């Protein structure tokens, strides 16, 4: 039982990493990025390509892939999301949905249907573990992911509260027009925020490839996990995202204990319970606070 809890919590680390970018983009640009999972898979393929073709190990490959992802985020916001956002709240969602399909199929065309993994390129890290008293084993990779999640979310939190650009992002998230009145270029700030979000997506893609296998259509499930973790944690709150990831990981692990096929169901149940509890208590489905400020999604617009 304790083993299940520990594994569940550590699994939450991965979910927090992948949910981080989704909830960051939602809270700053108010865009629910349905291409989130596909972009993460794209980053996974990028690392796989570097490793298998050029012999660059994945951790070194991140030095190349993450700046590329940042660039992708910038361009995406500047040329796609910003334009579609002018057409109302629904259009960006549809745009990212379409983008996900495009990315998935481009990956399919390029890499075929074979499942890939980064595990062969990271030596023993993919299966090494530490033994805890009581005969419990914790994977080194799982610990690394949890540590990364905490560092990433803590770093973002610190960045948002202590840095001029971070404050500009918070101000823009709250009110882009008023931000303009005090000299903030909201377009630039949003593009930078998208770049930051995509860097976290790139990291999530790396972990996806290291801890499991992926294929061109793996984006959907990853998006679902990210979305569930973000909503459970209250999208827009950074530390909430970590909690959301942990709750999701715990629910899946416990679900798997109860029934062989209970892994996904456990997560979905936790997601729905959190959603309905919040709807029932506050009347809004997704509430972000603390970290970045108050973002409310009106009832019925999504979820």
């Amino acid at each position, binding site marked *: 039982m304790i083993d299940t809890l520990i594994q569940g919590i550590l699994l939450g680390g991965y979910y927090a990493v992948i949910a981080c970018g989704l909830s960051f983009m939602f809270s700053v640009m108010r865009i629910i990025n349905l291409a989130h999972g596909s972009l993460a898979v794209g980053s996974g393929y990028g690392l796989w390509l570097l490793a298998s073709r050029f012999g660059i190990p994945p951790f070194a490959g991140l030095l190349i892939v993450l700046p590329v992802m940042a660039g992708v985020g910038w361009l995406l916001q500047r040329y796609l999301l910003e334009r579609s956002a002018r057409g109302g709240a629904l259009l960006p969602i549809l745009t990212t949905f379409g983008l996900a399909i495009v990315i998935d199929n481009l990956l399919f065309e390029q890499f075929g249907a074979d499942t890939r993994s980064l595990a062969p390129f990271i030596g023993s890290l993919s299966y090494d573990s530490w033994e805890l008293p009581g005969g419990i084993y914790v994977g080194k990779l799982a610990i690394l992911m949890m540590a990364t999640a905490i560092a990433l979310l803590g770093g973002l939190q610190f960045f948002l509260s202590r840095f*001029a650009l971070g*404050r*500009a992002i*918070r*101000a823009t998230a*709250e*009110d882009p*027009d*008023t*931000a*303009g*009145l*005090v*000299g*903030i*270029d*909201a377009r630039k700030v949003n593009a930078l925020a998208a770049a930051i979000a995509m860097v976290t997506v790139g990291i999530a893609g790396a972990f996806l490839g290291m801890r499991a296998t992926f294929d061109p259509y793996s984006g959907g499930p990853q998006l679902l996990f990210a979305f569930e973790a973000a909503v459970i944690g209250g999208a827009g709150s950074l530390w909430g995202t970590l909690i959301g990831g942990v709750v999701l990981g715990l629910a899946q692990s416990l679900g798997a204990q109860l029934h062989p096929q209970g892994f996904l169901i456990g997560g979905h149940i936790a997601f729905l319970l959190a959603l309905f509890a919040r709807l029932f208590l506050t009347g809004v489905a997704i509430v972000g*606070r603390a970290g*970045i*400020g*108050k973002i409310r999604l009106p009832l019925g617009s999504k979820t």
Partner: protein
Amino acid sequence: MRQQVRKTPPGETFLSAKGIHKRFGALVVLDNVDFSMGEADAVGIVGPNGAGKTTLLSVLAGAFPPSAGTVRFDGRDVTAQAAANRCRLGLVRTHQVPKPFSGMTAFENVLVAATHGGAASRDEAYESAVDSLTLCGMRGVANRQADTLGLLDRKRLELARALATKPKLMLLDEIGGGLTDGEAQELVGTILELRRRGIGIVWIEHIVHILLQVAERLICMDAGRIIADGEPKTVMGDAAVVKAYLGGTPA
């Protein structure tokens, strides 16, 4: 008519709006408005509700472009410039209903303005933020979350945040609205201090006796037009102004 791009010498037109039209669909809100003022002038704008005062301010500040007409500021044509650029040039506005960044403290609100509104360095931004808060009497509430502030403090924050961008000209929209006389009087003190620092003011205000303590020139608008412009006492006595105020609105 085109001027060279240069800094405005004293005594010449600093901010000007020529032939401004603003339509929202079929509704004409500004109808061929011409307006100009010199550097460090203090201009008051009065007029009944719906006269187009706030719209004029928004066009001057760059919240939205005019349907027709040009806006020049400090020797430049800024008609196509976004609000953020005008702010960095020194033209900043405040809102009638204060719009603080409510998830941030009062200090952060002002600091973010100081940083992006034109400060050269972090230290300068910090100093400018502290100075603005002090000038607006907000040191005591500097670390409170903006959404916990009362109305007077929100109005002051609006002023402090605009001030922190080191403006040459501030556009104030009903900053005294909803305040008690005593509170409004305090704001007048702050605004007079801004004048002493050489910052130009355009101030929309319904509370005329407050406005007249600051304004050297008064403009009265009605139905999208400027109907009177000149020395405050003269304007207030103008027949058209009296008619606009007393003739059109139920008391």
